[in-house]
């Protein structure tokens, strides 16, 4: 093995020695012990590796990134272990049957979306939170990406977060289906491990939207809701604790 070949192989050898037991490096390492020029080059190579490693380690993630990920993990659970009937092949077969049935049903029955009530929305949200069933479709703090994702998934996307939440860190978003109606959900981290959800609903899909300019506070057990209407949109903020505490986000 000439030194050029040995150098190319040793280029892939990590400076912390983690590759010491990999036989692919054995010959080149042995050569570096025999050849002073190669040994010098290799020592420089490892010294540079240590410096570059230290430089990369000096780049620290934002202090709230881990909290955001852990929070998102709580609302975006790993899927539970699936039984044989839930494996992709069976799911695909079941999905095909459902699509076929739905296609036939479409012509037999005229599908309709049932209008929602405010109580229906809050109790559905309470159920989802209680049962840990909120999963985020996209995890990002970028409002533009969130808007784009919601639009792509047919959720209301042309809205502005209320002033109190506008500068809070977003964790991600989802589009919920409530009685066949698409409802956008944006998840915010509001300091430490606290989280609030903003729901955005097409006002016309609600049978009893709040009056414009008059926010309503609701309490459902440990869950609190603040809701109001602005233009064509009805908004709901959902969080834990006392309903009064949601005022700060309006």
């Amino acid at each position, binding site marked *: 093995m000439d030194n050029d070949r040995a150098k190319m192989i040793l280029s892939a050898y990590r400076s912390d020695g983690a590759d010491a037991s990999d036989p692919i490096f054995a010959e080149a390492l042995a050569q570096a012990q025999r050849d002073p020029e190669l040994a*010098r080059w290799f020592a420089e190579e490892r010294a540079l590796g240590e410096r570059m490693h230290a430089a990369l380690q000096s780049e620290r993630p934002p202090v709230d990134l881990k909290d955001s990920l852990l929070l998102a993990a709580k609302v975006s659970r790993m899927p539970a272990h699936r039984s044989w009937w839930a494996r992709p092949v069976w799911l695909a077969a079941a999905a095909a049957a459902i699509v076929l049935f739905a296609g036939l049903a479409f012509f037999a029955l005229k599908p309709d979306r049932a209008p929602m009530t405010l109580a229906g929305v809050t109790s559905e949200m309470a159920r989802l939170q209680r049962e840990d069933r909120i999963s985020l479709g996209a995890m990002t703090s970028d409002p533009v990406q969130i808007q784009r994702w919601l639009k792509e998934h047919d959720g209301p996307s042309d809205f502005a977060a209320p002033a109190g939440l506008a500068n809070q860190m977003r964790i991600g978003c989802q589009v919920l289906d409530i009685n066949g109606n698409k409802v956008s959900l944006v998840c915010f981290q509001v300091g430490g491990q606290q989280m609030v959800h903003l729901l955005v609903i097409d006002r016309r899909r609600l049978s009893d939207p709040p009056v414009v300019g008059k926010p309503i506070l609701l309490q459902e057990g440990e869950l609190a809701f603040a809701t109001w209407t602005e233009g064509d949109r009805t908004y709901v903020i959902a969080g834990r604790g006392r309903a009064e505490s949601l005022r700060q986000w309006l």
Partner: protein
Amino acid sequence: MDFEDIISRYYEDLYRFAFSLARNRDEASDLTQQTYAVYAEKGRQVRDASKVKSWLFTTLYREFLRLRERGRRLVSMDDENTEVPEQVAASDTERSAEHGELLDILTSLDDGHREILTLFYLQQHAYKDIAEILEVPIGTVMSRLSRAKDALRKKLDAASQQNGITVIPIDSIQKRPEQNG
């Protein structure tokens, strides 16, 4: 390992890899978050726990390429609309000048050189894993690493000359104790 362990164990190096790819801290955070979102959805596919780390880095790299292909060019650090968040600025002040300079040089390299060097210098991945993450043959990893290091050294030398810093050969440092003794 549960999901929270997987976050705690890998999020920092995933962020560093994302930062090197995107050269933007906000984008790096988003890429890291999106990687874990994909893991939450598809992580069950990873049956071998020892493959989780490579899977996450592969996913992050694919997410980066996907965003780039969609025409969402990730802005570089020197773009005017990139603001350095306060907490990052604070970490910058703790960072030594040398580390800052090395990172600047690393992030100034071409994409192909930057991504492979970052994976390599993170010291988290053997060359075989790097081949898997970047989806290139093992031989290509070795030759590309070698070329990338050449490019890095050239930039380091140029920076040293520009700053008037003399690069001391490693063997002269090693000889010092003997000379003093």
